């Protein structure tokens, strides 16, 4: 057939498009499971990193990270009732994935929607860290809107259910160099030892502009803001305030002493 005929051009274009799209689709679909596994491994690394039981997580091999993760005790929390939910296997059930599924989704009242999420799953997976059978930390998932992106992280609290032991951010799309230092350990370690609630149980946690004046009253509830990243750090503060507020884990944390002893007897 004449190379310059319109029919030939159409045949060549269509067949190239078909072959190439099959090639790209096969590559994308067949490699997806491996990419997801890597993302899971990365997330596990962040969880292990703030569990306080492992060496600096950067020095661990992948297998050591998985082994350390297996030592944690995942539990699914029913946020409405503030109790553990035993229906699903916490090791396999992905509470993040079902956040928008109708049977799990809960609409967040606008007045309470500090993290600007709109809806969330009624279930959340948390991790209990035990050392010699004694509870030392609880790792709770938090997420919320930053300036540009949804920020996903974990906050580890001590067994007093009030002191922040550590925190980490594992997914964000904030401005590089300005907002994304929320992922730097240098900033995250400044959260260690800060408190969430005061004696009356009121949520006092705040990220303030500039550096915290350590001598001022209430500075124990405050974390330094990041210069130039007010929107992003406000997003992080609001998501923490949401998740530790009455619509987040507050009910569960208030119930914790009763539900955890009930759980232990099983």
């Amino acid at each position, binding site marked *: 057939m004449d190379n310059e005929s319109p029919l030939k051009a159409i045949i*060549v274009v269509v067949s190239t498009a078909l072959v190439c799209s099959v090639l790209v689709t096969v*590559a994308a679909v067949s490699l997806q499971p491996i990419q997801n596994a890597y993302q899971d491994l990365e997330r596990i690394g962040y969880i292990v990193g703030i569990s306080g039981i492992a060496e600096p997580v950067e020095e661990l091999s992948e297998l050591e990270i998985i082994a350390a993760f297996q030592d944690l005790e995942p539990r699914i929390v029913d946020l409405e009732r503030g109790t553990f939910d035993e229906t699903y296997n916490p090791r396999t059930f992905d509470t993040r994935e079902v956040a928008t599924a109708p049977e799990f989704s809960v609409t967040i009242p606008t007045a309470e929607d500090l993290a600007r999420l709109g809806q969330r799953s009624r279930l959340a997976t948390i991790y209990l860290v035990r050392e010699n059978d004694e509870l030392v930390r609880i790792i709770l998932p938090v997420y919320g809107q930053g300036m540009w992106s949804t920020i996903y992280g974990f906050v580890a609290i001590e067994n007093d259910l009030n002191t922040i032991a550590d925190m980490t951010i594992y997914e964000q799309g904030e401005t590089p160099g300005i907002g994304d230092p929320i992922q730097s350990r240098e900033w995250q370690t400044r959260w260690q030892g800060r408190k969430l609630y005061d004696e009356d149980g009121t949520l006092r946690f705040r990220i303030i502009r500039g550096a915290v004046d350590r001598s001022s009253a209430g500075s124990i509830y405050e974390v330094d803001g990041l210069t130039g990243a007010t929107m992003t750090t406000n997003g992080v503060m609001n998501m923490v305030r949401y998740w530790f507020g009455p619509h987040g884990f507050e009910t569960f944390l208030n119930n914790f002493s009763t539900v955890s002893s009930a759980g232990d007897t099983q």
Partner: protein
Amino acid sequence: MMRARRALLAPLIDENPVTLHILGICSAVAITNSLHSALIMSLMLTSVLAYSNIVISMMRRHLPSSVRIIVQMTVIASGVIVADELLQTFAPETAQTLSVFVGLIITNCIVLGRAEAFAAHNKVGLSLLDAIGNGIGFSLILITVAFIRELFGTGALMEVVILKPVSDGGWFEPNMMLLLPPSAFFIIGCIIWGIRSWRPQQVERADFQPIAIDESEGK
């Protein structure tokens, strides 16, 4: 035999895609602040180039000139996406440091340039040699630039400290400017200067001659 030799060896210095044709500068500037990224990028570009030259050479008798470029771009883009997926799967950390620049191989003029200028008119074997030659030519420049930038910008190469920086109690003061993209321009410029002094036939003829103005005229 002569043609095969030429296809493979000419792009190394005599017809280097970066220094003679000034192609592929975008990635040469962007990712050469570390030798590791430069090596991965070189490997990725050479594989994409080899794939696209082979496929386009196989199709060369059936490429209507009216849709030639778009068909070539489709072939190249698919190859780049597959290469990017493979990198993200098997070397995710490297993929993160290279970020968008693997995807941008699609717009690397070397790939389309070789498809148009060589693969569309030559046999498959010869096109493959041309791709490998050009890939190595590009890699040579990338690796040289990255070597200079990483060594003098950080004092280390591939995480091995060679020149101990002052901050770690050594004597070497790292040149921070070398870590910024503009420094790649200076280095590539110096390489081009060097090559053209050595091989003056590469110097382009001036597009026009400045007209000498007689200064005594017109006052």
